[in-house]
């Protein structure tokens, strides 16, 4: 039961974050929000008895992926300035 409530809360958070990621004007916020979506997703995976997937999502989806986004964004900003 507690799992259910956590799942619902996380699910709603994921969707909110996803909407922020898509619609927020600031790209940096968008990228972070997308990373948070991944992070929350990995919690869902834990709930779903998938620790392997959770680890991978955390390391790759919210970690490396976000870093790559930032590297590229940073590079673009530098070129702009």
């Amino acid at each position: 039961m507690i799992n259910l409530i956590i799942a619902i809360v996380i699910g709603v958070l994921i969707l909110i974050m996803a909407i922020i990621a898509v619609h927020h004007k600031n790209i940096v916020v968008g990228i972070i929000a997308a990373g948070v979506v991944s992070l929350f997703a990995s919690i869902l995976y834990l709930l779903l008895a998938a620790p392997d997937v959770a680890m991978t999502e955390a390391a790759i989806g919210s970690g490396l992926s976000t870093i790559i986004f930032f590297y590229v964004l940073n590079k673009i900003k530098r070129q702009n300035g």
Partner: protein
Amino acid sequence: MENLNLEIITLITGVILVLIGIWGLLTQKNLIKIVIGFTLFDTGIHIIMVSIGYVKNRTAPIIDQSVNINDVGNSVVDPVPQALVLTAIVIGLGVTALMLTYVLKMYQKRKSLEINNYNDLKW
């Protein structure tokens, strides 16, 4: 709450995430936002996949102290979707990295992140 299972909640989350991702892909004009849309779409699919492999009240498909070695078949969730998701996540990362590199390259050429500025090829 009787019919509301964990995996149904996550499945719905995943489906909506997929839709939000596609919405982002189709409506955002900023190239990076489009790539973000793709990652959301991808994550949504992964959540759907893991949800499908879940079996109620079972543990992770790892045989340790918590699992009765003689009754593994009745105590763990389906390992196959998890294995597939592992693969899919890594593939998704490769694709994302590639997309972002393209975006970078496009920006270097034209100094714009607006997708509408890359319509030279048409008809």
